């Protein structure tokens, strides 16, 4: 297992290198640079900006720029944000917890809802409740997250005033106290629901269909034939089989959540990686943009690996050792 994981990780390196070339090329091809907007005639002058460009190495030959960037990059030096004037790594470290928290909450909500609804609908297919769940799911699949987000803010934050509409925490609570975490949860709930809606819908649907399909399998008949109670058949025999593909989705979720966070965070002004990414594009903050793009790509690779590993772990048929 460990050996396999290590080899998988090694196998990512060439792919990441290729991606880095693409990312770098794209950054190079982007019009404008971070110093274009920084005109402040009373405080600076064109020479200062030109000097900054020179310092940032933007006038060096392309290959030199790439070489410098990638060498630093693999050493963990992602450069300094031209906008925030701080280490990109520190900047990401600052935003990351928020996004992680959002992602994990959203995942938890997704899984809880999907399991509850999916199992119920799968056990009682073609009933009114199943149809209702199906209807909700279709809506969840169809309503784009930004529409859902805008509606959610409109109703739950403004009309009903149940949830805050922005931010990640109430500044007035003491760090680390119970209220603090409560406040974070309170803030993250709405975006997490919106972010998780799509996943919830597809998981529920998947689980339902898989349960229905599984319940027609021969081994279920076998279990019945030996006198296993119905509840045990669903909760053990069928569920265990349906969970396997679902668990492996977890790997892919990492990716979905991160890119989903871009839109959701923008709508809820939730200061995380997604907002940072959009910001970095708008302000041509190349070090941040390139690092994040690389990070997202890495996460895709990583997510796929996790999916494969999980699959190997949970499915006895293809257990890897």
């Amino acid at each position, binding site marked *: 297992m460990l050996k396999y994981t290590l080899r998988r990780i090694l196998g990512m390196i060439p792919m990441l290198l290729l991606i880095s070339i693409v990312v770098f090329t794209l950054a190079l091809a982007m019009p404008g640079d971070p110093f274009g907007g920084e005109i402040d005639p009373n405080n600076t002058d064109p020479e200062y900006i030109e000097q900054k460009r020179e310092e940032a190495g933007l006038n060096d030959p392309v290959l030199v720029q790439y070489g410098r960037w990638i060498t630093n990059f693999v050493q963990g030096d992602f450069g300094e944000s031209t906008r925030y004037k701080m280490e990109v790594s520190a900047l990401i470290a600052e935003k990351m917890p928020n996004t992680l928290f959002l992602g994990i909450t959203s995942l938890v909500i997704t899984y809880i809802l999907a399991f509850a609804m999916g199992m119920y609908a799968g056990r009682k297919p073609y009933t009114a409740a199943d149809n209702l769940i199906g209807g909700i799911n279709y809506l969840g699949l169809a309503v784009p997250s930004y529409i859902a987000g805008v509606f959610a803010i409109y109703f739950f934050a403004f009309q009903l005033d149940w949830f805050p509409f922005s931010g990640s925490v109430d500044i007035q609570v003491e760090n680390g106290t119970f209220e603090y975490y409560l406040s974070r949860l309170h803030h993250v709930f709405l975006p997490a629901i919106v972010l998780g809606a799509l996943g919830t819908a597809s998981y529920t649907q998947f689980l339902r269909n898989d349960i229905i399909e599984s319940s027609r399998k021969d081994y279920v008949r076998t279990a019945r034939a030996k006198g296993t109670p119905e509840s045990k058949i669903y909760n053990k025999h069928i569920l265990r089989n349906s969970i396997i593909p679902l668990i492996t989705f977890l790997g892919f979720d990492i990716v979905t959540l991160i890119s989903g966070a871009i839109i959701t965070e923008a709508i809820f002004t939730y200061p995380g990686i997604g907002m940072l990414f959009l910001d970095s594009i708008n302000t041509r903050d190349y070090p941040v943009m390139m690092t994040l793009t690389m990070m997202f790509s890495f996460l895709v690779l990583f997510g796929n690996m996790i999916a494969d590993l999980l699959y190997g772990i949970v499915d006895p048929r293809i257990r*890897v050792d």
Partner: protein
Amino acid sequence: MNNVLDATQTHETTSSKTNQETLLKVSNLKTYYPVKGGFFKRTVGHVKAVDGVSFELKKGETLGLVGESGCGKSTAGRTILRLLNPTDGEINFDGEDITKLRGNRLREKRKDFQMVFQDPYASLNPMQMVGDIISEPIKNYYPRKKKKEIKAEVMELLKRVGLPDDAYTKYAHEFSGGQRQRIGIARALALKPKLIIADEPVSALDVSVQSQVLNLLNELQDDFDLTYLFIAHDLSVVKHMSDRIGIMYLGHIVEIADKNTIYKEPLHPYTQALISAVPEPDPRRKKERIVLEGDVPSPENPPSGCPFHTRCPMAVDKCSTIKPELKEVRSGHHVACILVD
């Protein structure tokens, strides 16, 4: 039963079972499947599906190939038709070595040997109408042939295999298993081949239907001067169909002989066990069953020496070390067992 097609039209030789001309000669044929290991998909080993098979097939004769599931029967059949590439050995068809043929030359050759498949459901394209299925081989080789002519030929074939005319515009799923197998046979016949390899053509069928197909195959052999390589796992069916029978075990032919010889005087312990295991529909007859222990070993790492020694009731020590050759112990009776002389 009338000849609906004029058989002489395609075959100059009026072959009969007495014709001793060799049509197919297979020598030391080996086909290995690579085993891809782990997620890195590297070849970590080989499934030795066919591991040194040799036999000859005379024109007009039927050779039956029996063996348990996974012993390499289909692989052997497909390799001979060059649907798979042999790992080693030689396939000589009608005096020509076809082992190394490729591309168009192979395609040209294909006209002469055809296959009937096991699964009447999976071997017909569900998206094609029966007419298209049967005319496709003709269109492939005679692209300039007129549509009308082709259609006439197909209609003849339909009639010949006992399908109604309106089958032409129907889809395979509208037919029963036996009828589908007839469609498959018609397709194989369309190019008027010399050799037909029938890969378990009846094992997916009910007994009542199975006999229809067997009868049909028998009739067609006479009418079209066909040579059959008949693959099955059911000994009684093979015996019914064949002139000679080869018994396969784990990629090897362990015994090959005339069908009555095989039935009456099996020499290889495996053949003996196989024959004794076939249940006979006669409640009065008491026969002694030789029940073999265990299952067929995996062809991925076959036992050393004689492949059968792990299950053989008569095995002696040297069976695990000496790999027996297929020897002709009597005229026309070949056995691969060191205990047999």
